[in-house]
């Protein structure tokens, strides 16, 4: 049976969670380790840390953050942001990450995917793809799509890569899963890009995590039921305290989506 994973994502800058998090009962709402543990207690299936630090110091801090977090986190932890080499991956995995996500560095040098997979196994290589609709001037989600293009450097720089071709190439090179972010939907809270996710997920044999656009619980169920997502990533709807992981799972289960039930 196919059961989807619900994954809260934390943006971490220099060892601190950057977006405000409205959790009740936290000692330190900016501490990634405490937040990860709190989400795990609520029944999160996995945690993603995205390192948005711009500096080398920030990257080193991330290794410490992962070490501290992994001390008391007993669900999978994926860390992305700034992974450029097998050594970068090794540092994070040794610190306690279970998976690393690569993005820009993999686009620049696709064989990096094979190198990390060869050294540590495909299961720990997630390729993060930032996808943007390429339309005839229209930017709305409903605009007719010519294609989706891959962007790098946190969505700032367009490439010539087509999202589907790149996703398939990642799979061939040994990626274990794809973290697919719709740049058009990200931050809108108007729902995931179903068309994009479905097209990638149904043509890839590896799991696809849908990201970008979650605004309510219906969005979560639709991206699974209509978009064929294998996992769903969300940030602000959980951080802002709109919904708890428990509520999201109850809603998904009631919609007919297979999820791991919350057991206290």
């Amino acid at each position, binding site marked *: 049976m*196919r059961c989807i994973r619900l994954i809260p994502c934390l943006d971490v800058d220099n060892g601190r969670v950057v977006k405000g998090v409205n959790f009740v009962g936290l000692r330190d709402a900016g501490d990634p380790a405490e937040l990860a543990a709190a989400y795990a207690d609520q029944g999160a299936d996995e945690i993603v840390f995205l390192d948005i630090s711009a500096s080398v110091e920030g990257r080193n801090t991330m290794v410490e953050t992962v070490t501290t977090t992994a001390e008391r986190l007993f669900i999978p932890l994926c860390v992305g942001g700034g992974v450029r080499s097998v050594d970068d991956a090794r540092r994070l995995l040794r610190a*306690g990450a279970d998976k690393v996500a690569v993005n820009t560095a993999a686009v620049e040098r696709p064989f990096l995917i094979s190198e990390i997979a060869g050294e540590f196994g495909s*299961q720990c290589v997630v390729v993060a793809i930032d996808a943007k609709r390429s339309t005839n001037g229209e930017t709305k989600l409903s605009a007719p799509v010519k294609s989706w293009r891959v962007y790098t450097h946190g969505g700032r720089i367009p490439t010539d890569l087509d999202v589907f071709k790149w996703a398939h190439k990642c799979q061939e090179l040994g990626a274990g899963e794809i973290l697919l972010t719709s740049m058009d939907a990200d931050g809108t809270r108007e729902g995931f890009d179903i068309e994009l996710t479905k097209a990638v997920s149904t043509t890839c*044999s590896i799991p696809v995590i849908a990201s970008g656009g979650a605004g309510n619980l219906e969005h979560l169920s639709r991206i699974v039921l209509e978009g064929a997502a294998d996992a769903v990533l969300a940030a602000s709807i959980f951080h802002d305290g709109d919904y708890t992981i428990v509520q999201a799972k109850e809603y998904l289960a009631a919609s007919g989506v297979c999820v*791991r039930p919350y057991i206290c």
Partner: protein
Amino acid sequence: MTELTVNQMSPANQDDFFIAVLDYGIGNLRSAQKAFEFVGGRACLVESPAQARGAGGFVLPGVGAFGHCLKALRESKLDRTVVEAIDASLPFLGICVGLQMLYEGSEETPDVKGLGVIEGAVKQLSGTQKRPQMQWNCISRTDGRRPALLQGVGENPWVYFVHSYAPPLSDVVVATCNYGGDVTAAIERDNLWGTQFHPEKSGAVGLSILANFVALCRSLNFHWHL
């Protein structure tokens, strides 16, 4: 008998109890060690047969490709420790590829021989489902089996899987999950246990399973020393 077993059988202080997590140089083994320590079992990463001596239980983790793991295991010489510990009926837990390596071989790497401690060959997950199975799934005990490892975790506990291959459905299988058909989730043979899922990544349920293993190790050690 081997050095290892002679040492095991000698009276030992229970305070010296430790679980040897076999560290043959792959991936993140700290997570298994930390999980054992969280449930109160002293766990040491051991890199050689000598370091494993005196252990009250053995854990063989494993992630990545079957052939890659076996090559590394043989280079570390810890493959001998595995075979000797299981031959001597010492408590042993194989996790994921650590379980798969105990079989005679795997479809994943047909030219590499497994350790052959358990009969049969590891097979690719069949059906139209995605590979790897990278998700939480609930497991069911095989009819008539009440494995000690799965005590106290409920009838259908949820655990985390990451794998494209799985051991065959044979008489050592004590629990399965459903993923395009029945898939081996856990095995038991005397004091040998194995999980295709990752207890160290399976939250509270996984920690209970590891605590069960620690308790089994302690009680078995206690009986040897009577």
